[in-house]
């Protein structure tokens, strides 16, 4: 089997390209996706290959074009919507919240909404609070959405292909700072199933759970502790909803201790839900209260030092692991 070393942005592009070849109903729309080749170059070269009927630049009108995509999905097409930042999805909140995730159930199963909304989520480099919010807890609260957030090129490609085929509305969360992260992945076609977390590092003393960009810091922390003889099991959720609690519970039952890391805010976040489910399933197995490492309860500050302080980092994760192992 052949392999290739590619960036996450290229993995995402390959996923869309392969699926577009497979199904003529698939098209991409969003701000700057076509002639500009994508604000972050995820759609680079796609206009040249697929033409303006299938790679479509939109006006800056998220509510309009997100709703248009939902309507197109309900009437036979398979749109992929790129939000230049997930923070701009708030302009389209009514379409996502009142139409995308509700139409199928509300219509008694008459009109499904096979659409993928994708783009960078969370903080980048000092883009301040209106461009840094993590949206997974907001959209994760809405029944009807599948929420995916991959951490590497292999999963990004395989999960985006699954998302496009899911036949339902998918919130697909990428990370701007990680678009250039490289990985060796197969050249042959593959998919990664939705709803499966992955143990990315086996360990026996404590379970450390996160997703997307935070995985990097989790791996670093695990590596540092391994030199002190502490074995950390690291889990990448990959899909946030549906949540793979089985993989998580199996690990916690083994290690009896757990730290949850989330880039977004702590109140009512994904780790709050995950933590609740862990206590539900593993109450008798826990030797210590769970600890969360999340973004602090402020809008994202601009200044470099403050930004570094509020986003979870390796030091904060190490402190939490040390605390939970006491």
């Amino acid at each position, binding site marked *: 089997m052949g392999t290739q070393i590619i960036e996450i942005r290229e993995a995402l592009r390959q996923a869309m390209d392969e699926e577009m070849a497979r199904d003529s109903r698939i098209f991409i729309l969003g701000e700057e996706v076509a002639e500009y080749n994508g604000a972050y170059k995820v759609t680079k070269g796609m206009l040249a290959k697929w033409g303006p009927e299938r790679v479509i630049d939109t006006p800056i009108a998220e509510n*309009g074009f997100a709703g248009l995509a939902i*309507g197109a999905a309900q009437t036979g097409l398979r749109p992929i919507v790129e939000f230049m930042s997930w923070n701009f999805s708030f302009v389209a909140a009514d*379409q996502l919240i009142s139409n995308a995730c509700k139409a199928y*159930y509300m*219509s008694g199963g008459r*009109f499904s909404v096979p659409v993928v909304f994708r783009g960078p989520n969370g903080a980048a480099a000092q883009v301040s609070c209106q461009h840094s919010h993590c949206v997974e807890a907001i959209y994760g609260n809405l029944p009807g959405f599948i929420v995916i957030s991959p951490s590497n090129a292999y999963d990004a490609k395989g999960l985006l292909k699954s998302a496009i085929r899911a*036949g339902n509305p998918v919130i697909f969360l990428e990370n701007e700072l990680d678009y250039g992260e490289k990985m060796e992945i197969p050249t042959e076609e593959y998919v990664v199933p939705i709803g499966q977390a992955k143990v990315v590092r086996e360990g026996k003393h404590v379970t450390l759970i996160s997703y997307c960009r935070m995985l990097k810091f989790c791996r670093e922390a695990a590596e540092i502790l391994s030199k002190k003889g502490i074995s950390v099991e690291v889990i990448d959720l990959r899909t946030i909803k549906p949540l793979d609690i089985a993989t998580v519970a199996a690990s916690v039952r083994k290690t009896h201790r757990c730290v949850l890391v989330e880039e977004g805010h702590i109140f009512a976040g994904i780790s709050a839900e995950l933590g609740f489910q862990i206590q539900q399933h593993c109450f008798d197995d826990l030797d210590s209260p769970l600890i969360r490492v999340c973004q602090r309860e402020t809008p994202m500050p601009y200044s470099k030092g403050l930004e570094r302080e509020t986003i979870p980092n390796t030091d904060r994760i190490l402190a939490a692991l040390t605390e939970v192992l006491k």
Partner: protein
Amino acid sequence: MQQEPYHFFPSDAEKVFSQIDKGLLKEALGQMYLIRNFEQRGEAAYQQGKVGGFYHSYVGQEAIQTACLAACGDKHWFTTTYRCHALALLLGSTPNAMMAELYGRATGVAKGLGGSMHMYADRLLGGLAIVGGHIPIATGAAFSIKYLKQKGLASFCFLGDGASVQGAFHESLNLAALWNLPCIYVIENNQWGMGTAATRAVCVKPIAEHFAKAYGIKSYTLDGLDFFNCYAGFKEALHECLTTSRPILIEAVAERFRGHSISDPGLYRSKEALQETIKRDPILRLKAVLIEKGILTEEECEEIDREKREIVIAAMKFADESPWPDPITLEEGVFAPPEEKK
């Protein structure tokens, strides 16, 4: 606000009459009676506690959607607001399934999951209840028609005067005009956005004539109480849309007879004004023409009305006797099953 007189679509009633199949006219009157009876009985059922939530009656506006369907056919895509009962009936959802939906029964058009504001038919995307939120959806249906190169089809989007100032409406008009989408937006100006007069909410009058200019598209103003004017206007608007591949903006001027919803006593308009409005009943107007022209007699009209009333009463019985959704199914149908591999 900017106020100018309406420029109603010029149509010669005699000529329009002569061009319409007489069977179609009888059928249209029957549909208007069906809608009227359905709404009256639906509200009665609501008062009896059989129907929950909100109830927005279409009474007084029947000529608009009935004429649209008579003139343009039912093969297009349609999207409308929470005032959606008439359109679902016109598009073939049965009175039984509609009433069962109002009653929250498993036999309803949306299995009892949608209710009064979310009615559907095979070509009706809803029944959507956020003011203006359905307009991008209709625009997306027009996008599909163009993408799939489906000839002779348009997407009809009905909205109220209140929705005509929502951002979603203006984003949609820009997108449809920019991309030449076959979408026909129909503002049914029933004079009131809940209790706020349209003239206190919209900065221009006429609405469509003004806004269409801003987007470089064609507009039509129709007398929403006159079946024949609506019929002629919709027919030409569809032809214009399909031959030019441009979106169209229509304003059909009417006035609803009932409150915004069933819980609205309508204290913002005088009894005298309402009586004047009711005198201009679109059903009576169509009926008068059909009698005058010898298409139907007074007795035959009464017979049609009675027949539709019986259908609606039977639908109430059907709904009442229909099963409730089984609680075991509560969490089913949130996600569509995976598509068969092509």
